[in-house]
C-alpha cells in the first residue's frame, strides 16, 4: 500500500521600500541565445 502524502505552503508578503522586478527566465534566454547563434 502506498500513500501519497504531501506537504505544501502558501506565502503572502508585504514590501516597504522595495521595488518589484520580474525574474529573469534563464531557460527562455538560453533558448533565445541558441536561436541567435543559429541565425
Amino acid at each position, binding site marked *: *500500500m502506498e*500513500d501519497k502524502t*504531501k506537504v505544501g505552503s502558501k506565502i503572502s*508578503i*508585504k*514590501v516597504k521600500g522595495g521595488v518589484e522586478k520580474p525574474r529573469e527566465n534563464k531557460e527562455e534566454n538560453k533558448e533565445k541565445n541558441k536561436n541567435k547563434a543559429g541565425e
Partner: protein
Amino acid sequence: MAGTTETYDEGKVVLMETGWTSYVTHARLWTDSNVEVDEQSVTFTYNTSENRWKPTGDIVFDVVAGTQDVSYVTIGSSTVEYYSKAFATLYDFTTLGTLTIDSWPFNITGDYLNDDGKEALFGTGFLGIATAKLYTSGSAVLLDTQSVTFEVTNQGGQLEPTANIIFDVTSGIAYSIQLFISTTVVYNRTLDSTYTFTTPGTLKVDSWAISL
C-alpha cells in the same frame, strides 16, 4: 540553495523523523545569488481550527539600502535550512525597507490522513507512529492492536514499516486500519477488500509506503 524554486527535501526528512515544530526557530531572507539579507527568530504553532501549521505572528525582515534581487526565504534552525520558498518576483531596495511575511501556513494532505493527526505529525514526526489497530466497518469493533515502528527509507522522504504488521483476529470482518501517535489517530485507511474471519487467523500488512 536555489532561489527560484520551492525545495524541501531536507525538511521532508526532518518532518518525517522528528516533526518540525521544535526544529524551526529561524527564518532568513536571501538574494537570488544566495546572500543572506536578514535573519529573524520565529515560532510556528499548529492552528487547530484551520488544521495548519503557521507562524505565531508576522515575520518582519529589515533590508538595508542598496540590496538587490531579494528572492526567497528559508526556515530552519540556527544553523540549518529546512525549507525554502521563492517569491513570485524579485525586489530591489534603493532605500532602507522591510519585507514582511504576513501569512505562511503549512499543510499536510493525504487521502487517509486525519486532521487531528496532522498536529501530531508536525509536532513529533512520523516516527511517532507507534500503534496500528484493525477494525470492522465503521470502527465498530476493534479486532486487534499491534505495536509498529516506521523508518525513513530514502532522502527523498519515504516512510515504511520496519517489519510486517501482523494482526491476530479471533473472528469478524476486517475493514480498516488506523495508525496512532500516542492516542491520536493519524491515518485511517480502508482495506482494498474486506476479509471475513469465521475462525481465528492473521492479517498481514507487508507493505505500507508513505511518500511526501
